[in-house]
């Protein structure tokens, strides 16, 4: 008797869970299906994505101005807009793009594992990463710089770390972290790395570190959300070209993304993407970079 009641309860619970899971898929069926007035060569990634009608994009969810997830669950920012331009070129409508969070640490892995189709997440192109994935672009040229508290005037550039007293924070597996190590006297006492920038901001706020170093656009974004508390120290001291990460060896897809980016530089959609997002804080439209075909 007892077992029958328990079994009935378990079955009811399982049914309720299944119905609940079905309910979540409802909203992804609404909205227009992917336009198919673009055709692609058979067997290419573009054709596969166009036929599927959806694309998975890795982006940042915690980067103001570039990829920031709002309360409605949708990320907004310059990287997001660039991804939408690429999706449009593939004939996929905006609401069919699935955005997945890719913090700096996991960007190569998600591409290699096939969890995302492209990554547009303030992703600097460098040779080490090119060994495992491919880059289309660059679509933006950023530079590494340093963020300090607004009241701190002792740090004016990366050389301020050479005396060994100043502490700096960055994020794991990022090019700024590798670059700043060359300016530090002693890495173990001066450098701390976290997995996300928000922890670095907390550490700076609490005076555990004296500075945060990463790309200038990321730091500008954090300055915009914390008015008046922080400032940039000095000028950018490296060049960080942002690219679209995609699977290694997919040359046709890379060429397609490169062509799409070049078209957007020319037809104004790139400038509009900037003006709608980061341009609200930095009105200078960025210089369109030259695509690096390798």
């Amino acid at each position, binding site marked *: 008797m007892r077992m029958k009641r328990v079994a009935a309860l378990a079955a009811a619970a399982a049914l309720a869970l299944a119905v609940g899971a079905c309910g979540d898929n409802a909203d992804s069926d609404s909205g227009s299906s992917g336009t198919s007035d673009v055709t692609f060569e058979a067997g290419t990634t573009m054709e596969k994505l166009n036929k599927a009608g959806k694309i998975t994009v890795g982006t940042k969810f915690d980067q103001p101005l570039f990829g920031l997830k709002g309360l409605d669950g949708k990320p907004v920012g310059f990287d997001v807009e660039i991804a939408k331009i690429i999706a449009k070129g593939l004939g996929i409508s905006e609401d069919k793009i699935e955005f997945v969070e890719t913090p700096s*640490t*996991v960007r*190569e*892995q998600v591409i290699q594992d096939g969890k995302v189709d492209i990554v547009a997440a303030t992703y600097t192109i460098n040779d*080490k990463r090119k*060994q*495992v994935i491919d880059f289309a672009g660059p679509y933006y040229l950023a530079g590494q710089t340093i963020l300090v508290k607004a009241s701190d005037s002792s740090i004016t550039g990366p050389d301020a770390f050479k005396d060994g007293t100043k*502490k700096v924070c960055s994020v*794991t*597996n990022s090019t700024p972290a590798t670059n700043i190590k060359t300016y530090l006297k002693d890495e*173990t*006492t*001066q*450098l*701390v*790395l*976290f*997995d996300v920038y928000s*922890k670095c901001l*907390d*550490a700076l706020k*609490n*005076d*555990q*570190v004296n500075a945060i170093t990463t790309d200038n656009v990321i730091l500008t974004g954090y300055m915009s959300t914390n008015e008046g508390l922080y400032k940039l120290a000095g000028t950018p001291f490296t060049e960080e070209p942002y690219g679209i990460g995609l699977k290694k060896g997919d040359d046709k897809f890379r060429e397609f993304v490169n062509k799409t980016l070049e078209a957007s530089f020319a037809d104004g959609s790139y400038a509009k993407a900037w003006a709608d997002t980061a341009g609200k804080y930095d009105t200078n439209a960025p210089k369109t970079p030259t695509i690096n075909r390798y």
Partner: protein
Amino acid sequence: MNVLVDHFDAFAGGLWNTFQYCVLAAIGALILGAVAAIFRISPIPPLRWVGTAYVTVFRNVPLTIVLFFSAFGLPALGSNADFLRIPGLEKIVPRLGIDLPFFRFALIGLVLYTGAFVCEALRSGVNAVPAGQAEAARAIGLTFTQNLRHVVLPQAWKAAIVPLGSVIIAMIKNSAIAAFFGVLGELTYRGYNLIIEDNEPAIPTFIGITIGFLIMTIPLSLLLDRVERQRAVTR
């Protein structure tokens, strides 16, 4: 499996750092747990309440949250954990003495968390001592502290060894979580970094990390077995 040979210094350095962290955390947790256990079994009600509150909070809050409060809440309260910069200890464990407080915060977090489990393990040992022992001690006029010191604790120790061993081994494995809170030298973090930054193959690297942890936990298990065989309750 070349990654183990090529990056041996990364694994060895990481193992040494984790070993230092675990030893310090174990000492702290045993002391704190013992104090909390004595509070919990004391005849003074306020001490009992303090002990119970401590155990209830820290056994039920996940370690990640405890470390989060330790790494970002303590500074907000104005502390840099400078009291842990003990002069003699700083020489042996240099990371205790540096300005960056994250190692000290991670140490505090792990000690607080593990101390609650140590307290419960010790208390289970105390409860295993037959009630007649404590009653007899009271009958011959021993005070509470004398009771504990001479009658109960020597017998409780035997019964508490096995749960204590499990708690310490679990603590060694929990030390990996500190990597998310600014502690960069640990074994797990170093291995993970090899996979992400140097693109080494994942499985051999994780085998290396596992070997590191086994090097730390197996001797501890063997030691506990030996102690248990000498002093066990069941013979």
